[in-house]
Structures are given as C-alpha cells and as structure tokens.
C-alpha cells in the first residue's frame, strides 16, 4: 500500500515552546490512523501543520509525494485534504445544506457573473450542487434537517454535519479532530461505525485524534503516540497497548513496571 501522507522531521515551535519535535509520520492509503497522546502533546498542532493553518519551522509534509508545507489552507483543501475541528466550527448562520454546499466550493467553477446572467453552466451547477447536498445530508443521517440553521442543530448532528461538509469536497484524506468529544457512549458507538463506513464506502484515508481509547483501539489500523511533541511509539493497537513508553506517558514514570506486575498477577 502506498503512502498518502508523510511527514519528515516535522517541527513546529511557538517561541521557546517546541510543540512538535521532528515527527516522522506516514499514513498508508485507505487506512484509519490515529494520533493519541496526553493533553498538550502536539496532536492538534500536527493537524494544523498538515492542513496549512501553520507553517512548520522544519521538515516536510508530503501529500501523495508532493510537499505541501507552507502552502495556503485553501490550496491544500483543493488538493484533497479536508478536516473537522476539536470545537465544532460550522458556518453557524447558514443552513445545514448550505454548509455542505460551501464544502463543495473548490470543485465548482461558476463565477458571480454566471449567477447574474443565469448562464446555463450556473443552472446546471446549482442544481447538481443542491442534489449533492441532499445526498450527503442523507448519507450522514441528517435528512430533513437541511434547512435549519447550523447553530440550531443538536450537538451530535453538528458533528456529523461537520464531517459532511468535509466530505463535500471529495477529499482523499480526512482529518478528524476528536470526532467523539462530548458524546455519550451510544453516540460514540454510532460515530465509530460511521467512521469505519466512511473508509469502507468511500475509500478515504482517515487520520484522527482521539482520547477515547475504546474508539482508538477499535477502529485504528495504526496508532501514533505523541508526548511533548515527540513521537514515542507507532504501531498496531496491540503493540501500543503494551508499550511501556506509552503507559508511562499517560500514567507517569514507574507505571509501566506496575502494570507489568499487575498483568503477571492476573
């Protein structure tokens, strides 16, 4: 399997703070990869470097073997990377379906002048755009809620709408920043299934940040663990679970020894 996203020696500093420190990450195509780590480990910063919010100080980000670091966010979006946010960021004064239509923006071609003269291209594009919006609403299970303002939707629906907006651009890589944050176990379960379905139906590669270990262990093909901006482990869920470095990062020094003892007792 070829690699869709790769970071080489990626570093990002905020003044004296090293947020991300020489991280090498590679995400195979059509995988579900997770990034985990304690708070402040640099997970979201890594996301922001990938999607163009930040320009990394050192290193490279390769998307389909082309370097994209330092390019503007909208160019990167046009290349086929879409993302969601830790705290939901919808266009709150637009309706749900309009949010999805904005998500389709980079694929569309009509200009304002087409709209004024109602050109044929405009009419075709407008109807196909709305049709696609309806289809995506149905796909994420928001049928019938499309004409409500995004800010009036319930929390879970907003999360799904955000994903629908990201999907509207037909991305090759989808970055999900804590997709199950603030959800109850049922909703989390649903979301987990949904993410799997995304990969299986659409063949999208998914890179996600998540704190819920059940979710992470359940869906990930590959897990990367960050601590203080440094990659401390990478591998399949099984390997990560028993990795002493990871346990120490989460539970403090010495914890790995304790857990080993605990396991032996059992």
């Amino acid at each position: 399997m070829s690699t869709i996203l790769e970071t080489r020696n990626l570093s990002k500093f905020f003044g004296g703070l090293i947020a991300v420190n020489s991280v090498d990450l590679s995400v195979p195509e059509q995988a579900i990869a997770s990034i985990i780590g304690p708070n402040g480990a640099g997970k979201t910063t890594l996301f922001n470097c990938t999607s163009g919010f930040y320009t990394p100080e050192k290193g490279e980000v390769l998307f389909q073997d082309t370097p994209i670091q330092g390019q503007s966010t909208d160019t990167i979006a046009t290349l086929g990377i879409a993302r969601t946010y830790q705290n939901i960021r919808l266009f709150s004064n637009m309706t749900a379906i309009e949010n999805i239509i904005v998500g389709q923006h980079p694929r569309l071609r009509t200009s304002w002048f087409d709209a004024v003269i109602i050109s044929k291209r405009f009419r075709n594009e407008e109807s196909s755009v709305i049709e696609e919006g309806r289809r995506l609403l149905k796909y994420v299970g928001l049928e019938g809620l499309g004409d409500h303002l995004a800010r009036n939707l319930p929390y879970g629906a907003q999360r799904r709408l955000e994903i629908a907006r990201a999907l509207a651009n037909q991305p090759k890589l989808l970055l999900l920043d804590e997709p199950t944050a603030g959800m109850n176990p049922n909703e989390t379960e649903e979301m987990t299934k949904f993410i799997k379905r995304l990969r299986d139906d659409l063949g999208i590669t998914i890179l996600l940040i998540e704190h819920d270990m059940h979710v992470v262990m359940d869906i990930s093909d590959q897990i990367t663990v960050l601590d203080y901006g440094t990659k401390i482990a990478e591998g399949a869920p099984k390997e990560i679970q028993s990795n002493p470095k990871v346990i120490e990062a989460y539970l403090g020094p010495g914890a790995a020894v304790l857990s080993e003892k605990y396991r032996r007792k059992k």
Partner: protein
Amino acid sequence: MSTPIKNGLRSGAISSIIVIFITIINFLQVISGMLGKLLGSDTTGMIPIINLIIILFIIGFFSGLSSAKEREPDTWRAALLSGLYTGLFAGVILFVFSLVIGAVAAKGIDLRSYLSFFAPQTIQQYMFNLEVIDLELAALVPGVVLTGAVYHLALQVAATVIGSIFVRGFVRGEWRKNLMISLSQSTMVTTGGSGLKQFLNNRYTKYGFFIILFVLLIVLPRVWGSYWNYIMGTVGIYVLLGLGLNIIVGLSGQLVLGYVAFFAIGAYSFALLTAPVPHNLLWNFWPAVGAAIFLAAVAGLLLGLPILNLRGDYLAIVTLGFGEIIRNLIRSDLLTPLTLGPRGVREIAQPTLFGNPFSSDIDFMYLIIVAVLILIYITYRIQNSRTGRAWLSIKDDETVARASGVNVYKYKLLALSLGAAFAGLGGAIFASRNLFTGPEDHILMVSINVLCLIIVGGMGSIPGVILGAFALKGIPEMLRDFEIYRMLAFGALLVVMMIVRPEGLWPTGRPKLEKYKGEDEPELQTLDNPSESEGA
C-alpha cells in the same frame, strides 16, 4: 418585595421620568400640537387639553402594558396589581413634580434661564390649562395646583390599569400568538402552511404585489411633486449605497467604515470627466457613469489589497482612515489643480436619453429607480450563488472558510470592488443630480449613515436596506414638523427599534434548499422555538 410592587416601581419610574423629561423640554406641547393637527383641530393658541390627556394616557398605557406583561404569577390579580402600582407610583411622582413646579413658578422664578424651553405657559399646559397662577395676585393658587396634581395621579392610574388589563386580556391571549406565528412565517421563504402565510406565498399574490409596486414606481414620481421626488431620490441614492455596503459588510463581513471614499471617487470622477472646469473633458453622461463605476471598483480593489489580513476593529479603523484620506486629498492644495479643492466641481453633466435631455426631477427619479432595481437584481442573484455562499462563510468563520477551499482573498476583493462599484454609481448619480459636488458631500457621516441603515434594516438583507434607507433618510424628512426635536424623535425611534427588533427591521432568512419546490413542509417545530430567530 412582591413582584407587582417591583414591576410597578420600575415601570412607574420609567414612565414618570419620560413625562417629566418631555415636559421640561416642552416636547409635550409639540406632540400635543401635532396630534391636534392630525385630529384637525385648531392649533393656534393654547392646545386643547384633550390632546395632552391622550398623550399622557398613551404613555401611561404603555407603562401599564410593560409592567403587566411577562409576569411570573400569570393571574389577573398580579397583572392588575402591577398596573395599579405602576400608576400609583408614576402618579405620585408626577403629583410631587406638579407641586414643585407650581411652587417654583409661584415664587416668580423664571425657569427659562435654566431650561430654555420651560416657559410658564408650559407649566400651565402641563397642569391641564388650569389657572395655576393667579395673574392679578401673582401668586400660586394652592388649591388649583393640587387639583392638577390629582388629575395627573388619576390619569396615570387609569391609564396603567387599562394597559395592564389590555396586556392580560388580549396581548397574552391566543389570537396574538396566532397572529405572531403568521407574521413570522410570512417573512420566511416557505411553501405551504395555513391562512395568511399561504395567501402571502401564493404565486399570484406575489405577482399582484409586484405589479402594484411596479405601477406605483411609474406613477408616483409623476404625481407627488418635486419636493417628494427630491427626498425619495435621496433615499434612492442611499439605497444604492446601502446595497453596496451590504455586500461588503452584510455579506462578506468586512466592517468597512470608509465607504464614503468610493462614493467620493464615483462622484468626483464623474464630475471631472463631464464638467467644463477644470479639465473641459465634457464627456457624455453614460460613458462617464461607466468610468465612475469602473474607477470606484478599481479603488475598492486597491484598498482591498493592503487590508486583506485585517479583521474586525483593525479593519474598521484602517478603512475609516481611508475615507478621510480621500476627502482630504480632494480638498488639499496639492490636488486643487486637479479637483478644484474645497470649491467643488460645478456644471456637471445631466443625463440624456437618445439625444434628448433626461434631467427633470421626474426623470432623475426614474433613473434612480432603474439603478436601484438593477442593483437589487445583481445582489439578489449573487447572494444565492456560489459567490454569495462563499461570502457568508467568510463572514461566519474566515479560517474555516479557507480550510474548506474558499479563496478568501479573492472573494474579499470581489466584495470590496463590487460594493465600491455600487457606490461609484451612487456617487455619479448624486453628483449629476446636484449639478455640483464638493468635499463636504463626502464626509464621514455618509459612511456612518449608510452603515446605520444596514444595521437598522437588517444585516445582509435587501428589503432591509430599502426599509433602512427609508427609516434613516425618509423619516427625518417626514419629522420636519418636530423642528428642533427632530433628532430627538429620530434617536428615540432608533433606540426603540433596536430594543424591539435587535436583528433589524427585515432580517434575512436563508433559502430553503433541501426541500424540493412545491413539496409540503410539515415542520412547525422551528416556530415553537423562539431562539431560532434570535442570535445564539
């Protein structure tokens, strides 16, 4: 303290302060006089006290209304008590006020040295035209003052109690709720539904409405005379400006305070291209209008480049400066050979149509109406297209819009230059209509007024711009009768409006795109949730 007493104190204090305030600025007399005019009675000399009673009653009625609504114990008793306490409290304050001004007047102190409008006549008017001051004795007649004070007390109590009965009986009743639902629905783009809503959404009703509007637009400029043509022309030019700024502020969310700069560039480029002095270019009207629009659009683009990365307050300050820079440049010594400086440009070209002059006030009115209709069409088409949605997304969250693949710079520049082009057209028509333009036509107040009319009308809404222009430019003209109180009345209107409708006179709804056209829509749950229309 029980709720009715608390409400009573609050509403009573407000209403008595209002009455006292408008009394000491002599406003009570002026509106009583206006009312007299409306009722057709003689307004010379003393104003009949019935007018005063009506005004006081209205004030009392509304304070009773406000005290008795939205009460926790939703009972007749609580509502009536609220009204009663309001009336008593306001009445007592006015009672004391009556005694005080009576006593002061009796001492022979002329209050006009402190409050220039507070004449003895005002006092007498306030006391229901009772002969408070015995002219022969030059002294107060205590009994009469007391009578006046008691009248005030009684009037307040009666008015507030009636107000509270009204609010309890009707306003909180079922029919009002129904009316509100049908009203709120009529402002949304929906299909199906019941009664009034269905009527308003009927296709033929809409056509009928447009035909009536069209006929009015053709007929009115011919019949209402040059005074109204002038005023409505001004309103129309402000609609043009409002539509332009609406694209910049209302749609793309860039708070630009120097909008008048584009207006000035439009007006001046038109003026300089057509006037005999200083350049003697003598262009024809239409190409000059085109050039004005183009130059304004280019100015919008050029201003846009340095401010692309600014947001919010910073953007407002920078653009504020831009507006002032343009005005100062126009009047500066440096550019006087080019712009004639503070003197302004005269003898600006008038429009022609197929070689015939087209410059009477009626013609100008038509020209402005056509321009407004064209710009409304353009804005309407754009705002529900890819471009319009990109603007809205930038307004909501620029960072996320960019991450969704919207080229934020491009769309911001487009909004600025389109908005500036609209202002350029407005400026050209303005200069041509006045035959003159000078630096003082392009002061900061123009920007502020245009921004105000958008806010009053409702951000991002086309009907809002029109209503806002009428409210801000039309109403002050209609308030001419108030003379010195014009700005007071206008300010009060604005304050009331922002309290009653903080989202603007005609806020935008978003189009319904998910439902297929003609499909029935059984969703009323949005209306049960009042937070829907308010900001979250």
